């Protein structure tokens, strides 16, 4: 399905009835996915609720720029991601430490270019034995940019093209960021497994 991400007003404005109809038919069915995305980004139920509510208010306000028949879920996710960056990341509860680490990890990595040689000594069986909370904790410990691509790809099932539009980055960057994100996740899983004595050989 194509994704129209234009925020300029569409040529034909919706009538009030149409706005409500589109909102109910296209946007409300996505609310569980939106809430989960918000929760994974903020790691906080109250913040997630605020973020989802803000996003839906914006979606309604800008509904005329949503083209019917295009991918509503991707359109909403993009608004939510932008709201998160603009409104929530600033007032993050652990500011400088996380931000610095994030910047360092992201920009020292030549993300636009090559994938890095990287092997983490972790066995599939070990991961197989982990429970959901253990996997979720490893995911939550990643810097938000890396967490985001994994959520979009592996949890929400977006294509690379959709992710590129949601995140406003080229597809090549989606690929390399995913690759780096997965390597980081493997390291976290490996450290966790070692600390629990799961991965003994």
């Amino acid at each position, binding site marked *: 399905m194509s994704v129209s991400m234009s925020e300029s007003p569409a040529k034909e404005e919706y009538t009030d009835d149409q706005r409500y109809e589109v909102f109910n038919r296209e946007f409300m069915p996505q609310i569980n996915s939106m809430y989960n995305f918000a929760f994974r980004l903020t790691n906080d139920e109250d913040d997630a609720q605020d973020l989802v509510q803000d996003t839906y*208010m914006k979606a309604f306000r800008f509904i005329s720029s949503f083209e019917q028949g295009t991918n509503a879920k991707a359109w909403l996710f993009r608004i939510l991601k932008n709201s998160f960056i603009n409104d929530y990341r600033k007032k993050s509860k652990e500011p400088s430490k996380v931000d610095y680490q994030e910047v360092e990890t992201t920009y020292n990595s030549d993300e636009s270019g090559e994938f890095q040689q990287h092997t983490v000594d972790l*066995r*599939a069986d070990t*991961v197989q034995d982990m429970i959901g909370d253990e996997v979720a904790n490893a*995911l939550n410990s990643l810097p938000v940019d890396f967490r985001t691509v994994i959520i979009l790809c592996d949890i929400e099932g977006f*294509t690379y093209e959709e992710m590129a539009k949601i995140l406003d980055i080229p597809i090549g960057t989606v*690929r390399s960021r*995913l690759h780096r994100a997965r390597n980081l996740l493997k390291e976290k899983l490996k450290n966790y497994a070692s600390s629990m004595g799961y991965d003994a050989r």
Partner: protein
Amino acid sequence: MEVPSNTSELGSKDGMKHTCENHTECMKMIQAILDGEASEEEKEHFRQNIDVCIPCIKQYHLEKCIKESLSNKIERKPCPENLVNAIKVKLQLL
């Protein structure tokens, strides 16, 4: 997944490769395959080579397992009903 260039790279008896000299490229391909984003060329290369390279086989299974764990094991919370209602009230949908 690269085809070995000389026989010394082959495992002693089993015909398998025990090291991968091109692992970074292979990892890119494995990622694209698992994400359903591989080109026809990549899929063909994968089909022809995945059976012989032990490091790639291991990584393929690990990546697949992590991907499945993320999509199947992590709890998905339903959106709280009060939030759905709050949005509807704000937009006068109720």
